[in-house]
């Protein structure tokens, strides 16, 4: 099945079609030279288009249905993956998966916000939008990880915490606030990777860590571009403009000191070559993990506090003494 494509990918799609047409007539004289020329042109066009993605285009790539989701990464990176369920309080929130596995020789706790591959799965996974029980489930599992000295690796991919009646009745705000606070008390390494969408408190509710990695075509912001557009411009159609204003791309966030590393993706996005994406992510995680496991727990807690203590931009006029 062909991957769904975006409008801005049209030139690429056309070239790819031309090439595949030619490939079917491969035995004709001179065809292979033509194919080669077109392939070079395709490569150049891809670089041209993908290296100049606007923030809004990047948001769209981050949401591509075929993009690898948390479980895709988890199942290919961690051996002995063992999923556990539920918050021991209310329910099992399927919008987040939690469990344990091994990466190399290291046993770890793994948490990931999970979107679906199709509408049916998306309904079960609530499009990766967690309820309070999801945040509580995640914290329960993080606490188990801490007790048994397992570093925590978290995959972020959510369009937001779910805005619904039950979510409010069960304390969505409290669940997120408590997680944010308690993640500052965990004495094991916490490694965060934003693989797709990092929308607001929904992401931060499992997003406090020692290192924040972010994939090249992911976004992370205080609000979705559509949400911002509908509030500031009173028009969701202004999302492209608000995506630009919000500075939500990885290079912007690196500059603002909010993330630590951009994990490169295959040309055109992780969905165009999932296997190589898994490898890149795996090695990025392993590298950071090797560094973090050497740090004593109390030092980790202090470092984490200092990391977030510095966040924010303002002018300070020191009073003269």
């Amino acid at each position, binding site marked *: 099945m062909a991957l769904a494509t975006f409008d801005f990918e049209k030139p690429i799609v056309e070239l790819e079609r031309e090439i595949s047409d030619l490939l079917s007539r491969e035995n004709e004289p001179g065809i292979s030279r033509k194919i080669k020329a077109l392939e070079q042109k395709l490569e150049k066009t891809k670089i041209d288009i993908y290296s100049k993605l606007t923030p809004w285009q990047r948001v769209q790539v981050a949401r591509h249905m075929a993009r690898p989701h948390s479980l895709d990464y988890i199942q290919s990176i961690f051996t002995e993956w063992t999923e556990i369920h539920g918050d021991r309080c209310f329910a099992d929130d399927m919008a987040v998966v939690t469990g344990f596995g091994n990466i190399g020789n290291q046993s770890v706790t793994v948490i990931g916000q999970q979107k679906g591959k199709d509408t049916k799965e998306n309904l079960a996974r609530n499009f990766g939008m967690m309820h309070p029980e999801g945040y509580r489930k995640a914290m329960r599992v993080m606490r188990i990880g801490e007790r048994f000295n397992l570093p925590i690796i978290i995959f972020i991919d959510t369009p937001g*915490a*779910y*805005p*619904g*009646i039950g*979510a*409010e*009745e*069960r*304390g*969505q*705000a*409290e669940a*997120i*606030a*408590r997680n*944010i*606070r*308690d993640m*500052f*008390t965990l004495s094991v390494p916490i490694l965060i990777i934003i693989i797709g969408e990092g929308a*607001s*408190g929904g992401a*931060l*509710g499992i997003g*406090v860590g020692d290192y924040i990695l972010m994939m090249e075509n992911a976004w*992370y*912001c*205080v*609000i979705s571009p559509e*949400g*911002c557009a509908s*509030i*500031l*411009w009173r028009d969701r159609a202004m999302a492209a403009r*608000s995506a630009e*204003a*919000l*500075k*939500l791309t990885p290079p912007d*966030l690196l500059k*603002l000191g*909010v993330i630590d590393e951009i994990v490169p993706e295959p040309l055109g996005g992780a969905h165009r070559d999932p296997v190589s994406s898994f490898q890149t992510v795996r090695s990025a995680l392993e590298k950071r993990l090797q560094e973090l496991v050497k740090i004593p727990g109390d030092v980790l807690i202090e470092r*984490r*506090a200092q990391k*977030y*203590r510095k*966040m*924010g*931009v*303002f*002018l*300070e*006029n*020191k*009073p003269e003494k």
Partner: protein
Amino acid sequence: MTWFRKRKYTVLKPTEKKRVDIPDGLWHKCQQCLHILLARDYEKNLWVCPKCNFHDRVSGWDRIGITFDPESFIADEDILDPTDPLEFFDTMNYMDRLVSYQKKTGLKDAVITGIAKCGGYKVVAGVMEFNFAGGSMGSVVGEKITRAFERSLKERLPIVIICASGGARMQEGILSLMQMAKTSMAIARLNEAKIPYITVLTHPTTAGVMASYASLGDVIIAEPNALIGFAGPRVIQQTINQILPKGFQRSEFVRDHGFIDIVTNRKDLRNTMINLLSFFAPWAREKEEVSSQSQ
């Protein structure tokens, strides 16, 4: 109901007309029940309608005046200025917006912090100003709140934060989100040091502020009928496409679902706070007496 309103309107009409002859602002009309009373009496009643108990919005400074012991509040030096790290533009640029809020409120940003006494208990205090950008939290609000927590930790004083906020400030993007983490981190340290933190939620307290320090008080008090929640009611309505239950996301509803400890009328708020301080921080009172004796 319609009849009642109509009747009320006709009865009140002469009074409204009378306003033309009297100085502006002498009368106040309740926005909920349309009851009319002298503005002076309204103020004396702490901006609460005596007829329907509607709790009106109170400016940060007025809030300080009605909450803490007279003359006891000492504001922190106002040394932090907001800036425009994203060079944010929407229909207006962010810097211009800031200047207009600053003119409107006389504040540099949406929170006043300082030290105060409440029934003789010395506390660190933070009071949010809803009139400044809807009390939204950007870098300055996050920093001032964090410094207040840090002062409370350093001086071992209980802390009270009175919230009124629509959430994180969009125009500072991700940096606003990070203030949720920064403030919550400071609370983790406070909790570990066993220093009491009382949160007061006023109308409205939602989104990023509710999903960070507003939800993390040892005791959470709310004024009646305040809007309290994570997502805005309009967003929820649009998402689920059904009518929201009566009283949804209001103080009493949130209390009944287990997320607010006490709903109290404004006139009783101070006493509630003093009681709690007497349970959790008797030392905050003694400390003050000792130091004043030694002077």
